[in-house]
């Protein structure tokens, strides 16, 4: 049974190493395995959600709750630490810092971004005029982007992102910079996307915009998926939470945030894995070790290892030995067979009978 979905996340976590000094960064770089003294911060603590084709989903939550991390993972900019991510289709992300190259002109940026998304020169030329018209920056298109105002920059960024024809559009707080006319234009474009059956992920602080645009909404709360469901329901719950939160005293508020952050610092990935394994075991009636195995595969199956495997280390060592051995063979001038049977000869190089002046030519 093939499940119809566009985006699927399963128990996704994301860990950041918090290097305090340059020194720690260097240490973790040279010490090819993981450094345990460095504090870790878990930006996502196991998020599972499924988004179907043609849905527009809002993502809300307080600052630093992991919304952008999640949208970046979905768009493939950063890899998840553990978990399963499957995105079917091309994604295009619009963010405030639009990722334009400041020294190039607007037109060149359109080309560059198009090329980076895998378009050909012809395809770019075909949508170029639409982009310029949509961004509405007039003659500035031939000026370097560094001379643009911040509104112009984000308009250009948005225009490029929507015109390279993605299946999945991820909008990360990008609509808050434009003026009303541009905002209306964006809404029209987004609605056009919706009618075309494309999937939209909308990250925003503006609950009004979310209510206007999204069918479903997910509320991310300090790395957890606190709620997902009908926009109305979730937005109301979030409003309630914000209102309650505002009523608290200052000390209570900072205390609450501190405990939540502390939870993100102390998150135990192994414990979480075991918990998930238990749930899987109960849900599917598997033996304990089978459930554990399945969970481990779910967690790490897709992730490229950040630790070098022992096998790789041995292969490198072997390659190093071979390299050094043949280097010695070459320098000593003995034959390979002789060097293998009696490695000591490597330390006593032979010299050709006539040295110098052009005699050793092959």
């Amino acid at each position: 049974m093939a499940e119809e979905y566009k985006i699927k996340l399963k128990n996704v976590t994301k860990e950041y190493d918090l290097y305090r000094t340059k020194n720690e960064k260097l240490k973790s770089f040279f010490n090819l395995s993981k450094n345990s003294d460095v504090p870790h911060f878990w930006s996502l603590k196991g998020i599972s959600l499924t988004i179907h084709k043609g849905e527009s989903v809002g993502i809300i939550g307080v600052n630093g709750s992991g919304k952008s991390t999640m949208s970046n993972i979905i768009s493939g900019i950063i890899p998840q630490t553990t978990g399963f991510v499957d995105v079917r289709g091309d994604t295009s992300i619009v963010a405030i810092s639009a990722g334009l190259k400041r020294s190039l002109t607007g037109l060149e940026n359109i080309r560059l971004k198009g090329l980076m998304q895998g378009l050909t020169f012809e395809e770019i030329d075909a949508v170029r005029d639409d982009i310029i018209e949509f961004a509405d920056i007039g003659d500035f298109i031939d000026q370097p982007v560094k001379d643009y105002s911040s509104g112009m920059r984000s308009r250009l960024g948005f225009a490029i992102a929507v015109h390279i024809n993605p299946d999945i559009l991820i909008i990360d707080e990008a609509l808050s910079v434009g003026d009303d006319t541009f905002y209306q234009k964006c809404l029209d474009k987004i609605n056009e996307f919706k009618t075309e059956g494309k999937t939209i992920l909308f990250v925003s602080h503006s609950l009004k915009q979310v209510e206007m645009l999204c069918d479903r909404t997910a509320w991310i709360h300090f790395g957890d998926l606190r709620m997902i469901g009908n926009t109305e329901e979730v937005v109301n719950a979030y409003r309630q939470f914000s209102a309650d939160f505002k009523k608290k005293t200052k000390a209570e508020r900072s205390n609450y945030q501190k405990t939540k952050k502390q939870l993100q610092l102390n998150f135990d990935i192994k414990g979480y894995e075991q918990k998930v394994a238990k749930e899987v075991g109960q849900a599917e009636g598997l033996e304990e070790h089978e459930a554990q195995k399945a969970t481990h595969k779910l967690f790490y199956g897709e992730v490229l290892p950040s630790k070098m495997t022992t096998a790789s280390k041995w292969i490198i060592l072997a390659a190093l030995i071979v390299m050094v051995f043949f280097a010695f063979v070459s320098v000593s001038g003995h034959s390979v067979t002789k060097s293998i049977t009696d490695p000591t000869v490597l330390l006593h190089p032979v010299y050709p009978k006539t040295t110098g002046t052009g005699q050793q030519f092959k």
Partner: protein
Amino acid sequence: MHTMYQIISEQFQNFKIIRRMAKFGDRATYQSHYLGLAWEVLNPLIQIGIYYLVFGVALKRGDPMPGVPYLPWMVVGITPWLFMNRSVLDASKSVYQEVGLASKMKFPVSILPSIKIVGNLTSFWTMLGFSVFLMLVNHIFPTISWIQFIYYFICMMALLYALGIFNSTVTVLIRDWQITLQSILRMLFYMSGVLFNFATSNFPVILIRILELNPFYYVINGMRESLLNKGWVWQEPNLTITIVFWMFVFIVMIVGTFLHNKFRANFVDLI
């Protein structure tokens, strides 16, 4: 190991993007110059002129290889050298320069070094055409030994990419690496036998053999031998050096791709 395969296959999967972006980069670099792309050729020609005057005319020391005049010999060697020198330096900067752009979209960061390498190929082919012209003028004609050029070209690309992915990652982590690299390359320029053939010089034998292990020398000398019809890959000492060369490439590649993958997500935060 798995990481290495993955990153190498990314290069082939995204080959079209690499080629297009290299083309775009070439155009963008020389856009504000009146002579435009002509600089890609003019620059190395001026350099060759200077080296010819200094090493070929002023310090005249006879033919570097028997029967081959100095000028074609030097140009055939300096063509891959100039290409490798520029590509190593450009590739090492690539991630640092472009990461702000690449971080806001789905883009395989691992192809950034390749884009720089492929971008420099234009001037490599032009220079190579010039070398062949000089060889023909000096009565050196194509033979079957030219086939080896393909092999050495693959060697060169493998070496450049391995160094590219390694250096570009290290440069992000340690900015000083870029400057160190410049000094190392300047030193290697004199130690890779670009301007004079140390194999026929009065250097001690041991020193010559040690210098021969240098991977840049392997590529330069290999291209020279194949184009000037002077030797084969499977002849000694080339064979042992071949093994040393590929082991070197392999180790740099596996460590480089591993580091790249490990720090890929943090590139933006690290700068």
